Each structure stands twice: as structure tokens, then as C-alpha cells.
């Protein structure tokens, strides 16, 4: 039977020999992420920082400079950006809760004065008071931490503790790299991005599990085989699946990235980075750390 395949079935890569390079690359990526997080930091989006956002579409294509001029005398400091091409703008400001109302009123009045009423449409309003923002921030942090703990518990129950540790290290690696990308590309962290991070957390563990599952199975079947060989052949045999799955998932993510529109764009971008990192980290972090931390000898003794 002829099969179409990207990865030859008799693949025999000695992954354990290459672990140091993978780990090195991962450490480098994490350092870059940490560097950006340290220098640039993370930007909270509206959901977490509180503030106001208006998305306005004008009837005619108006240049952003005209909108800026029209809103010159508004008593809030504004951040005005184009949104998806001409004639559509995002107007943002940090506004305390008691002034949220005034903000919208002032901006609308100024726009009406300059462009005439009815010549523009308010497409989206988001106003978040600091209390809600604080609340969401607290819950958001809590949810990421509880997700990590839940994964650790699950993997420990189903596999071995050392794989649990490995998987969590990989998970933390993926979250850091995603956060690094978020920081480097100035993506504001809001609820949607948080959802992306949690999805990455779920996905990151996914590949690790597939490999661990294979290691578990092979150990059962081929007793006495050195741990090194077991790990190498487990990775080799699952590699095709790993690459194919991440491939189809990335196809979907790229469709979202290109076609999903402004709100979804950042979400899809973070997923893209996170999923790639998630696949890579299974081989570069999860399995090696389980391998190194609990060295080969110790494992043999146990068995």
C-alpha cells in the first residue's frame, strides 16, 4: 500500500543526544521573553486595567488626523488608532469609574460638532471601571494558576510524577514564551488573550501526554530496554502524529488569524506562538527534564 508520509517510518533520531541543544534553545527563548517582559513589561488591556474604548465608523473615509483634530479639546487624554483600514477608529482612554459617562458624552459631542450627527456610527463601547478590572485580574491570575495545578494533578495520577514535573515545566515554558511574544508585539492582555493562554496550557500538555503514553506502553512491552532507547523510539514513533496534528491545528489558527477580524487576530496570533512552543517543548523540555532530573540509573534501579 502506498502511503503519503512526511516522516519516514524507520526514523532513528537519537533525541537523547540532542536534548542539550533543545534545552539550550528553549533557555535562550525564555531569556529573550524574560528580557522583553523585564524591559517592556506587559500591557494590560481594558478588561484588566479599566478604562474606556469607543469604536467609531465614519460614513465617509476620514483620515485619522481629522479625527484627532476633532477630539482635540476633549478633557481626557486619548489614544486614537485606525481599526481595520480607513474610516474606522478606536478611541481609548484611561478613565476613572465616575467619569466613564462623561467620556462617552464628550467624545460623541465633539465628533458631532465636527462631522455632523448621523455621519458616524458607534460600533462598540467598552467601559470597565477599576473595581471590575481588579476583580477580573484577580480571577484571571487565579484561573491560570489553578489550570497549571489541575494539569499537574491529572498527569501525576495518570502517569508518573516525574512526567508531571516535566509536563509542568514545559507548560510554564510555553506560557513564558507566549507572554514574551505578547510583550514583544505589544499585545494588550485582556480576557480573550487570557483564554488563549489557558488554551495553550491545555494544548501544551497534550503532546507531552502522547509521548509519555507511548513511553508507558513501550516500557510495558519491551522490558529491559534501556530508558534512553525507549525514549528515543517513543519520540520517533509519535513524531509524525505530533507534526500532523499541530499542522492541522495551525491551519485552523492561521485561518482565524487571517480571516477572523480585529478582535480575533491577537487571540489567533498568541495561539499560533503558544501551539508551536507547546509542540516543541514536549521534546525540548518535558521529556528531557523527566530524563535528566531522575537520571537513567535511578530509573533502572526502580524497575
Amino acid at each position: 500500500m502506498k502511503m503519503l508520509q512526511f516522516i519516514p517510518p524507520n526514523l532513528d533520531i537519537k533525541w537523547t543526544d540532542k536534548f542539550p541543544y533543545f534545552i539550550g534553545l528553549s533557555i535562550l527563548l525564555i531569556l529573550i521573553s524574560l528580557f522583553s517582559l523585564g524591559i517592556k513589561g506587559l500591557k494590560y488591556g481594558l478588561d484588566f486595567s479599566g478604562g474606556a474604548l469607543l469604536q467609531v465608523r465614519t460614513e465617509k473615509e476620514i483620515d485619522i488626523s481629522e479625527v484627532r483634530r476633532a477630539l482635540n479639546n476633549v478633557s481626557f487624554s486619548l489614544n486614537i488608532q485606525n481599526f481595520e483600514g480607513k474610516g474606522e477608529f478606536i478611541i481609548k482612554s484611561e478613565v476613572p469609574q465616575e467619569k466613564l459617562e462623561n467620556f462617552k458624552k464628550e467624545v460623541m459631542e465633539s465628533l458631532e460638532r465636527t462631522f455632523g450627527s448621523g455621519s458616524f456610527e458607534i460600533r462598540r463601547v467598552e467601559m470597565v471601571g477599576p473595581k471590575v478590572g481588579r476583580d477580573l485580574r484577580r480571577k484571571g491570575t487565579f484561573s491560570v494558576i489553578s489550570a497549571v495545578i489541575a494539569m499537574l494533578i491529572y498527569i501525576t495520577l495518570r502517569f508518573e510524577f516525574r512526567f508531571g514535573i516535566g509536563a509542568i515545566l514545559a507548560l510554564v515554558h510555553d506560557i513564558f514564551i507566549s507572554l514574551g511574544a505578547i510583550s514583544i508585539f505589544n499585545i494588550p492582555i485582556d480576557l480573550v488573550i487570557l483564554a488563549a493562554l489557558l488554551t495553550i496550557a491545555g494544548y501544551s500538555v497534550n503532546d507531552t501526554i502522547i509521548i509519555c503514553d507511548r513511553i508507558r506502553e513501550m516500557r510495558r512491552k519491551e522490558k529491559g530496554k534501556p530508558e534512553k532507547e525507549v525514549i528515543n523510539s517513543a519520540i520517533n514513533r509519535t513524531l509524525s502524529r505530533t507534526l500532523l496534528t499541530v499542522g492541522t491545528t495551525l491551519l485552523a489558527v492561521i485561518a482565524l488569524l487571517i480571516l477572523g477580524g480585529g478582535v480575533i487576530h491577537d487571540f489567533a496570533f498568541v495561539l499560533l506562538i503558544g501551539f508551536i512552543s507547546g509542540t516543541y517543548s514536549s521534546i525540548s523540555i518535558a521529556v528531557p527534564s523527566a530524563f535528566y532530573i531522575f537520571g537513567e540509573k535511578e530509573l533502572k534501579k526502580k524497575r
Partner: protein
Amino acid sequence: MRGINWKIWLVIISVIIGVYLALPNFLGEIPPEIRFLFLKKKVRLGLDLKGGTHFVIQVQSDKVLKEVMERLGRSLSSKLEEEKIEVREVKASETLLEISVAAGSDIDVISDIARQVHSLLKISSTSVSDETLKISFQLPPSEKTDIKTKALEQALETIRNRIDQFGVVEPTIVKYGDDMIVVQLPGIKDTERAKSLIKRTGLLEFKLVDDGNTFIETLADRLPEGITIQYEEVQDEKGRLIHSPFLRSGSFTKLSKFIESIKDEIPEGNEILIEEIHHPETGTKSYRTYLLKAETLLKGDTIDDARVRFDTQFGQPYVTLTFNSIGAKIFEEITGKNVGRRLAIILDGKVKSAPRIKTKIPGGKAIIEGRFTSEEAHDLAITLRAGSLPAPIEIAEERTVGPSLGADSIRKGMIATVVGGILVIIFMAIYYKLSGIIADLALILNLIFIIAIMSLFEATLTLPGIAGLVLTLGMAVDANVLIIERIREELRTGKTVRAAFEAGYERAFSAIFDSNVTTIVSAAILFQFGTGPIKGFAVTLTVGILVNFFTAVFVTRVISDYLLTKTGLREISV
């Protein structure tokens, strides 16, 4: 492979049910004659797709506590004075009530009296200075929580009444945390009007206008620019014409700031409130003051009903009030005692109108005429019917999505779903040939089942939810990839096609199971934590993965088995 028949039937039946449940979502234009054949249940669209507004309202329940303390302070001091204990000062905050009495007063007696006022009111500390005994009272924390909870519940009830009467389809109004309320108004167009209707306290008061009082004239020489004194001709109680002074300005802020600055000079027992005046001919507004007797004669909680009527001559709207029996009695008494004087009708501290009482009014009916539009009259009537809020509220969060943006999002989401789906389908078919096509079939079924299940539970689809759908498409084939790769491996070891399929499905299962569970764990946490749109993401992701166990694992196996046993097919390309 015995027993395959019932499996095939199970698949066929579930496909029929799935299609049946999913169909109503796509039957927008179906003729009404056959619509009864289908369930009314559909996937709901979230606010971000349908358009609409989401508010989080914060009830300032601290102010309710303060009000309660003030009220307790008033009744305590009047009781103390009945007992001949001289009260020098009463101070109330949301946590503490301080009463100063002459030094040497009997604390036990005072404590007893306090308990009569409120059984839980306890002395927390005392201090003596300058012949004055200062006693601090506190309410226990449980009682304070109780007061706050009641305030929140009353606010919830009032807002629910107002929104129901405003006429919004499928609003959501629920408590959020211990002092907030979430209000969702799908499809609403006039957000501002809804907001002002929700936000107003809705406190209606009747107070007398103090027309003989010339205090306003004493301000004449220090009026800031933009404020003038004007006079109106009114009749006093004996029917004589007098000229009553009032302040007028084009700016509300200016006028209210000035009144605030002279607050301490206003004679005891008086207060100054503002009325907004519309000038329909120029489309502008101006503002004037009334000097009132501060005492509230009657409040809105005695109102049974309020309706909008239109005056037959000019079509001008007005609001009719019907009082309950207690209110009717008080109203008759007030009007009887004050014939000839003007009675101000005040809503949330602003004068709505101040008609002259021509005669005693029995029967408990009154009219509020103002220069309002019919919308304003309508909202006023709603407010009066729905009752007042126990405490002022603040909008802590507002998210509005215009209908056109929602429609754009749906369109883009659809395109992304279709394109993402087609890419995955093409890839699978090319790479895995017939097995890939079977997996594709499972993928399409998956999509149908997701929609069917979401319809059945009337779950909400949001923009991130659509993203979740696309993501599920990408991830759903993972199970099939695992299985097919496994089958390939087994074939390589020299197994027969049938044995390889069997082994492939069996061995891949534990990996499929474990890897999906972790994604469900993340989704569950997201669902717990997330707000509306994010919940939608968690829902589609979870449903998608659960359905996937059926479609990608069970259905594909049944199809492969069927092809291998019932048709003459010798092998299935992988």
C-alpha cells in the same frame, strides 16, 4: 465483527437527531406552515454577535448603611429627648453612630433606649470630655451584611421591573458579587436611554414652594456671570399677586455650583432645587431654581400606578399618578391645607414641575405636567411604577456592540470556520486518502453535533466561541491522526488490514483520552472564571471535544468496519 448492525443504526439515528436539532438555526426563511415540525430551540447569539449592551452596575450599599445609621440616630435622639436626656450632637457614618449627651447621663438607660430603637444596636465605646459624654454605637457585622444584601435585592427587583416595562426581549439581570448587578440587554438600540432609566434613583418627593420668601434677592449683588435673578407672578395663599424671585441660567453646572457655594446661608427649613426647562422652539435647555420648604410631605413609595397621557389640545404628554390609600389620604390633607400654594414634584432632587394647588384633591390622583417629550414621560412613568432604588448606583462596566459590528463578526467568523474547515478536510483527504475522507466525515458530523447540542441546551455562541469552533476543527482530527498513524505502524509490522485497524483503534484510545481531558480541564476553568464571551469559547471547545469522542473514535470505526466487512472492500487506504 458481529454486533456491527446496531452500531450502524446508532450512528444513523444520532446523525438524524443531530441534523434535526441543528436545522432550526439555518431555517430563517422556512415557510411557517412546516415550522411546527421543528423544536423552537436554537443556539443563542451572544451580545457580541447580536449586538446589545452589557452593564455591570455597582450598588453603593455603603450609602444605604449610612442612611440607616442616620435614621437610627434620629429616632434614638428623639426617644432620648422624650426621656429628658439632652442630646448635644448626633453623628452618623456607615460604621458608627455617635451621640453626645450631657456628662453624667445614665449609660444603662441610654443603652436600653438604644435597644428599643434597634435590638442589635450596641454601645461600642464611650468617652467624656468638656462635660460631654460621647457614646458610640455599632451594628453587628451580620446585620450590616443583611442591610447590604437587602439593598442589593431591592435594587435588583427595581431594575428588573424597569427593564421589563421598558420592553427588552430576553434581558438578563442577575447579581454579581456582593454589591453588583449584571444587566444584559440584547439587541437594544438606544443604550443611553436604557442607561439613564436604570441609573436614576427614582425617588419622588412632594414639597411646598416657599413663594413669600425673598432670600434669593439677598444674592443679587454677588451672582456670578451667566446667572440672573428673574421674577414670576404667582398668587399667594390669599389669592394676592406677588412677584417671586428665582435664579436662572443656561448652564446646570454653573447654577448648581453657585447654589452649593451659598448652601450655608439658605434659611433653616428651606432648600433650593433646580428645574430643567426645554425650549422646543430652539432645541436648547435652561435651568431655574425653586426655593422650597425642605420638609418632604409625600414620597413616591405611596404610588400605586403611573401612566402617560396626552393632552387633547396640543398632544403634550403628561403623567397621571394614582396613590394607594395611605398616599391618597396624605395627598388630600396636603392639598386641603395648602390651597393656593405651589406644590413641587421632585424626582431625584430635581424639580419636575410645581403646579399651584387650586383646590383640595380627594381620590388619590395627581398629574405631573412638565415640558417633556413623550419618551421622557414614558420613562418617568416606568420609574414611578417600578419604584426607587435603595441606594445610588454607578455603572462599573459597559460593553456595547452595535448590530452592524455583530453582523460583521458573524460573517468573518463564518468565513474563518469554512476556510479553516476546508483546509483541514483537503489536507486529511490528500494525506490519508480514504481514511482521511472518513475522518473528514467525522469532522463534519462533529460540527453538526456541536450545533445540535448547543441548540438543545440553548447555549450561547459568542465571537470567541466561533474561534473555539475553528480551533475544535483543527484539534478534532488529532484523534484520527493518532488512530491512522497507529494503524500505519501496525500495518508495517505485517498485520492484516483488519487486525491493524482493530489494534490502531484500541491502542490509540488511551492517548486520545488523556490528551483531550487536559483540554477539557482548561475549558472548565475558563468557563468557571470567564465572562460572557469567554464562556462561549469554553462551551464550544468543551462540547467539541466531547462530541469528538463519538465522531472521531466511534463513528469512524463503525464506518471502517462496515466498509471492511459488508462491502467487498479489501482494504482502506491510510
